């Protein structure tokens, strides 16, 4: 199936928002999605954007049953390793179920790697839920190492009231 991968524009944010929700449903957490397409427009297309995004598009004749031609996305941003330098973090990678098996996921992943390479990033990092076997297998097949398994990396998070409490303790400037 023909498809094209291109940088997202502000106008794509409604489609990206739709697919974010689809991915959350797949990850069994749809009630966790709090942001809207307006948040994406503001945060992805400002002076110092919080993220960048690629979308996968199919021609009209292959549109989805509901009429969508934007059928996948990869959302990423730049991080930094004080050991090796610039890195890229792939936050979301998603392809609508009816379009899987056509190389679109691999295409998006490769494109993010290419973009990172152009910016001289030495690592592509991402995370995956341990029960998500198809995704784990997909990334392992591309040569990704599971650092949680091999080196004991754990994600830690502060949010809500705990984050406020921590922030309130900060020393005066």
């Amino acid at each position: 199936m023909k498809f094209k991968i291109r940088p997202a524009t502000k106008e794509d944010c409604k489609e990206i928002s739709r697919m974010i929700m689809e991915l959350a449903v797949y990850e069994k957490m749809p009630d966790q999605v709090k942001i809207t397409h307006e948040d994406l427009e503001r945060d992805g297309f400002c002076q110092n954007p919080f993220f960048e995004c690629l979308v996968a598009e199919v021609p009209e004749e292959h549109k989805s049953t509901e009429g969508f031609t934007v059928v996948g996305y990869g959302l990423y941003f730049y991080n930094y390793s004080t050991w090796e330098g610039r890195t890229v973090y792939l936050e979301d990678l998603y392809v609508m179920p009816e379009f899987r098996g056509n190389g679109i996921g691999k295409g998006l992943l490769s494109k993010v790697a290419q973009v990172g390479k152009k910016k001289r990033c030495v690592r592509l990092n991402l995370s995956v839920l341990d029960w998500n076997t198809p995704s784990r297998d997909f990334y392992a097949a591309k040569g990704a190492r599971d650092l949680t398994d091999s080196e004991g990396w754990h994600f830690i998070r502060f949010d809500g009231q705990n984050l406020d409490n921590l922030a309130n303790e900060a020393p005066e400037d």
Partner: protein
Amino acid sequence: MEYSIRAASVEDCKDIRRLIGELAEYEKVADEVTITQRDLERDGFSENPFFHCIIAEVPEQHKTKEGHTKIGYATYFYNYNTWCGRAIYMGDLYVMSEFRGKGIGRALMSKVAQLGRAAGCRQLNFTVMDWNKSARDFYLRQGCVDITANTGKHFMRCEGEALEHLAQP
């Protein structure tokens, strides 16, 4: 002990590189550090920096044997969570061993949280190794959640030859 926490400037990069080396020693990976002072100057202090840094400094009278007054640092960068939006990620947090136990580490982390909140971030994220019990206990005491333990989220990395191969058009 008196100390101050402030935003790093490009002139701090020599000390930041020194402190990075010490943290890498502590994490038993000193020989993996290839970054230079120049990389830090370029990547942290350009128009669209790849990272930000705060420094903990003590007055002259408390300087180390080697004469250092910059005795701790934290790096951070802005991330994005597609469910709740802007997030701040703390990359490194380090205080020289002779200055620990005085609340400096906690103050650095609080400052990162404050900066994140000021930028509209709803999460402060970072990683810790499961063998680093003292760090893990420190963080859990501050009220954070171990997302890996709770949800099974695994951290994956592609680098070197695998990344080259992936980036082929």
